[in-house]
């Protein structure tokens, strides 16, 4: 029997519902998450089902939301907070960077903060300014934060459950362009833990490394390459921090070629970190330098220009073409 189909919004909703039902200390709060069920309907029905003490709207202040989550976590709760959009999390940056990320270290582990900060992120939805940022590098650069970016609906469920159950703070980046795409999700099948990447497609010739919204793009590129006689594999990182060097490097050592795909501007990015790590660890196995296919180093474009910005199949395949293939070396 096949599992029920659900959207990523529904998968996350189910994860929240199951977590709230299972653990009295889980509370969900943010802007428009209660009566409305979130602007993306991710928290739909939770307030009605669990009541005001478990799922509630706050005054409109992101720093307030995250700061209060810190205190609630210090007092034994597991807050799961929503930032309405990527760029609207910035008022909370101070709390995230100075406290959420550091309180555990500051207190030699005496105070742990099991907080999940859910952020709808990245583009591809024709959103106007401030609604499409890929902000992962800010968080990934901050020691103390776990940074997760699911690409499948099953992972969205499983990784969120793990994030809520864990003892450290997690920035949970939800690729918003996936919110309404349906996939089969069997919530009873466990997914690999946070920190483990997954090979979504094995390949002989080169490895595409991606996370979040770029995974389906990488898979589409591999699909296209296959029709042109090139066998590309795809690794889905699932979590940016912790980073799974082992899985990534095992794949790259097998193929000898790698392209990192990510939507964020490439300069000083997560993609750059991945390329550097792979270069350091797989140097003797590489046939060509690791390439990055990323957004340009510009602010996220207005809707009518975003297709020029987003890494697509063609740009990925162009990068693959430059990986110094023997048959092309004169």
């Amino acid at each position, binding site marked *: 029997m096949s599992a029920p189909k659900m959207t990523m919004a529904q998968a996350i909703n189910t994860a929240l519902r199951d977590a709230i039902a299972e653990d009295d200390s889980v509370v969900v709060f943010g802007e428009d998450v209660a009566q409305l069920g979130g602007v993306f309907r991710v928290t739909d029905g939770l307030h009605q089902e669990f009541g005001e003490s478990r799922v509630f709207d706050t005054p*409109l202040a992101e720093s307030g939301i995250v700061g209060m989550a810190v205190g609630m976590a210090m007092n034994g709760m597991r807050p799961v907070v929503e930032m309405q959009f990527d760029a609207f999390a910035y008022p909370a940056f101070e709390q995230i960077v100075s406290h959420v990320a550091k309180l555990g270290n500051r207190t030699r582990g005496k105070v742990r903060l099991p907080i999940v900060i859910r952020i709808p992120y990245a583009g591809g939805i024709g959103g*106007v300014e401030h609604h499409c940022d890929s902000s992962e590098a800010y968080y990934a650069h901050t020691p103390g934060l776990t940074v997760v970016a699911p690409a499948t609906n099953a992972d969205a469920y499983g990784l969120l459950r793990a994030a809520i159950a864990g003892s450290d703070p997690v920035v949970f980046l939800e690729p918003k362009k996936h919110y309404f795409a349906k996939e089969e999700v069997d919530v009873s099948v466990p997914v690999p833990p946070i920190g483990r990447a997954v090979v979504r497609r094995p390949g002989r010739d080169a490895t595409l490394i991606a996370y979040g919204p770029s995974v389906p793009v990488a898979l589409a590129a591999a699909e296209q390459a296959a029709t042109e006689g090139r066998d590309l594999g795809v690794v889905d990182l699932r979590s940016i921090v912790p980073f799974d060097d082992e899985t990534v490097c095992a794949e790259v050592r097998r193929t000898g070629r790698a392209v990192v795909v990510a939507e964020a501007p490439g300069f000083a990015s997560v993609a750059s970190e991945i390329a550097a790590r792979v270069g350091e660890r797989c140097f003797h196995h590489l046939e060509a330098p690791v390439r990055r296919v990323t957004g340009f180093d510009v602010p996220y474009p*207005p*809707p009518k*220009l975003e297709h020029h910005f987003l890494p697509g199949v063609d740009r990925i395949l162009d990068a693959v073409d430059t990986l110094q293939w023997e048959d092309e070396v004169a």
Partner: protein
Amino acid sequence: MSAGQLKAAITPARLLDETGRLVRGAPAPDAEALAEGYRKLVFARRLNEQCGALVRQGRLAVYPSSRGQEACQVACASVLAEGDWLFPTYRDTAAIAARGVDPVEVLTLLRGDWHCGYDPNEHKVAPQATPLATQLLHAVGVAHAARLKGEDTVVMALCGDGATSEGDFHEACNFAAVFRAPVVFFVQNNKYAISVPLARQSVAPSLAVKAIGYGMPGFRVDGNDLPALEKVLGEAVARARAGEGPTLVEADTYRIESHTNADDATRYRADDEVTEWLPRDPLLRVRTYLTAVGALDDDREKKIAAAAEEMAAAVRAGVGAETVADPEDLFAHVYSTPTPQLAEQRATLRAELELEEA
């Protein structure tokens, strides 16, 4: 602080009641000036309707309507002098148009062509701010700089009821008060921040009353009463210009439509509530009053409607015109001089596009 000041910050000031009658003891407004105000209200309403239609036709990505708030939109622009500044939000398209910016240029943002379609310096109108309350500090900065330069500029800074919960709102009020900056903070309290009702933003007796804590005057005014708004905002502007510092003005109004077309207000508020506000319509009472005092007849009403239609047609034509967004714009404005890396990336995109065309 006197009892009178406290009352002014809590009880909404009014000149025209819902039935279009002057409240007892209120001075009669100048009928010609009010008729001009009425024309602007009709334009603002027509613009809201036109933008709604353009969204339904897929010409605009999204539109946050100020229907029901037109008196606020008109008043905040009409009390400003030419050199003054306006700091609007995404909801204030009609206010920017009332300030004199071509609505088609304003709609560049919502059409998805570029982040801002008008020149802020030319019109003294800042780009529409989306990150809530952040623009209020910029307004304070423009005002403080004007003082330092010896200019008598006044800055009108707009935000919603929800935005008053952000830290930046507090910081802006405090900075303005401490520096006696010539700013008027104008909060359009339309009772909702998307789905979240006012009661979840604040349990203070009003939003204007917060001014007292910063050491500046605060006034609450009927936000659907154009003459009252123009009086209160006008006096605040005059005080600021005279070097007497900032004022916080709260308009008691209501968001008649959903947050944007993408929102479904039936999920969080009863239709009855909306219906209750309809008789308080800002256009209706001015019209009734002007008609009663003989300053508005059918002929003038028709002329105003025809001019509003003309404006709407121009908006339709302008927004409907096919535009080609230039991909090279992506790189042109990030720095005053593009970095070598950006020049390289521009060349990459250019080569890709040439290949596509070939």
